[in-house]
């Protein structure tokens, strides 16, 4: 503003400075000043993440691989189980430390997705039921999805400090929106005449939600969970900038040293993890009709065990 040019009516934008950037920087000051409040919350989430990480890393890789294959078989069928077995074996052989790094990354992703689920599902249901809330939350979701991660990386670090918790928070900011959107879409997509029938037979709003709307919206909601997982994985490299360990950190370090080979290994690890998680969650999202109306326990390894036990 101190420029001698003065006010130019044809270009008012460059001659007026409202000082928005400076006042926005106040957020940072506020964040630093209020760190004390955040610490206990941070500690809780950090313990949760570290707990998941330790658990995943404590299981011997071969057992873990077997577990993943069984989960895949149960959730998505034999074909996906074979794919998972091959993919995870390849991942393990990428580098001697690749498996451990992948488990650390998986721990971050799992923590993020669990938190996303608990935040996103209620918000999505609310958005599906209430037009006004949907109108309010939409621009917020647009912002969360499009604003460059680096913009909120600094304030988050100022408030919480570097480490896993910040990593999970920046991941949630980016990965949460599709879950809310798809939950809302799923709730809105439930056949209105079925809801009317439930009402006509005396169901309360709560019963309609839990007995009719959520079950019928489940495939769409699980598609949202699937998207959330994919977006969480795409954040691991950025999250590694604030000292989150795992495959992302490997890529970041390799880039710093222009080590293309190591970067490729880390990148491939992320891709394989993404494919595995995607196929498993997509399998969960199949509707009852696609599964031939079998309950989930009637197929896969559990079904096999039950059948064998049932025969004896």
């Amino acid at each position, binding site marked *: 503003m101190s420029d001698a040019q003065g006010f130019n009516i044809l270009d008012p934008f460059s001659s007026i400075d409202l000082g928005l950037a400076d006042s926005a920087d106040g957020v940072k000051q506020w964040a630093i000043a209020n760190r004390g409040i955040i610490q206990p919350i941070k500690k809780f989430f950090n313990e949760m993440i570290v707990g998941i990480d330790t658990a995943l890393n404590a299981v011997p890789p071969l057992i873990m691989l077997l577990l993943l294959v069984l989960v895949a078989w149960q959730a998505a069928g034999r074909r996906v189980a074979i794919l998972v077995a091959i993919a995870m074996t390849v991942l393990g052989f990428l580098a001697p430390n690749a498996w451990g790094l992948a488990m650390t990354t998986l721990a971050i992703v799992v923590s993020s997705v669990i938190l996303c689920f608990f935040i996103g599902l209620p918000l999505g249901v609310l958005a599906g039921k209430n037009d006004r809330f949907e109108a309010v939350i939409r621009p917020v979701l647009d912002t969360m999805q499009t604003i460059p991660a680096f913009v909120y990386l600094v304030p988050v670090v100022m408030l919480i400090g570097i480490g896993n918790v910040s990593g999970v928070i920046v991941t949630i900011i980016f990965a949460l929106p599709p879950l809310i959107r798809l939950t809302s879409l799923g709730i809105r997509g439930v056949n209105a005449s079925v809801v*009317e029938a439930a009402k006509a037979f005396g169901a309360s709003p709560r019963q309609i939600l839990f007995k009719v709307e959520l079950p019928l919206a489940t495939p769409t909601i699980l598609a949202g969970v699937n998207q959330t997982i994919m977006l969480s994985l795409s954040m691991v490299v950025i999250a590694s900038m604030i000292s989150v360990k795992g495959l992302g950190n490997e890529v970041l370090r390799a880039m710093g040293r222009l080590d293309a080979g190591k970067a490729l290994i880390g990148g491939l690890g992320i891709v394989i993890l993404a494919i595995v998680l995607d196929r498993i969650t997509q399998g969960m999202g199949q509707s009852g009709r696609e599964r031939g*109306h079998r309950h989930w326990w009637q197929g896969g390894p559990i079904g096999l065990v039950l059948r064998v036990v049932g025969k004896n």
Partner: protein
Amino acid sequence: MAGTQDEAVIDCRNLWKIFGRRADEAMKAVQEQGLGKLEVRDQFDCVVGVQDATFTVGRGEIFCIMGLSGSGKSTLIRHVNRLIEPTSGQLFIEGQDVNRLNARDLREVRAEKIGMVFQNMALMPHRTVLDNVSFSQEVRGHDAKERRENAMRAIDAVDLNGWDQKYPDELSGGMQQRVGLARAIAADPSILLMDEPFSALDPLIRRQLQDKFMSLSAEMKKTTLFITHDLDEAIRIGDRIAIMKDGALVQVGTPEDIVTNPVDEYVADFVAGISKLELVSAGKIMEPLAAYEKRAGPVDHEKWPEAHPEHSLDDLVNLSIATQHPVMVKVDGKPIGVVTKNALLRGIQGDLDDPASVKH
């Protein structure tokens, strides 16, 4: 005409429903200035769904509401269990004003007293047939064993035993609607609301389901409000019929009333194509004995076939097909009227103005 004089189970009084943002203003204008449907639409941008509907349905009666699509019949039936709130007017179920119930009591009435069948089935695709049928008892929190028994009984009643563990999309359309019917009767409600239940089915299946419904209905004696756009169906099923047009009930009466005495052109057009054989009785077309004897002289009716006034035209055709004589209509063995062949033929055509004027 079963039960029309008995207590009214459904009692609908001056019910109005106007859709639109300015419904209340429009309602006021209608009451004060007597605006019509089109004026309401133009002045208030509102749609009149139901106009001043008044009717009662007695215990055990089947009351059909017949109208074309858009006539407001589906809107009207949804007032009974208050899926739609009226703009004005009252509706009583067994003496209880439905619109004064609080949310909890309303849910109880819906679950325990009313069963509803929908045109598009509206079954829950994620639940088995059994779980669909026991839904209303489940939301009431009834004991699992009891609701299973009730549901199995209902499934049995609609001949679907063995299908209880299947999902709706594994069933044909006709079977799905039988599930819908089973769901409606499972909690043993006193009132059945049938919203065009058989309209989406093909003719043969529709016929089968109508028969099934009528035999069930004869057994269960439930008060039924039955919506249809098919006059044949209304006549087959209904004890009384209401013809609905543009949201208003144009005529209410027994099937015979409607067919023989349509109040206006609109109803007359509807009934023109209806077969009178089963509907019109001998009493309607007979010429009083005195008038006949005055015209044709005293007769020796020893060999004439005999009928009761309630006998249908169909019966009369069967009686007179074997003989050249007219049919003598008798009450308690006493001759009261005569149906000549010409009068019978005219009656089948639906020309019932005055039996004496039939040209001989």
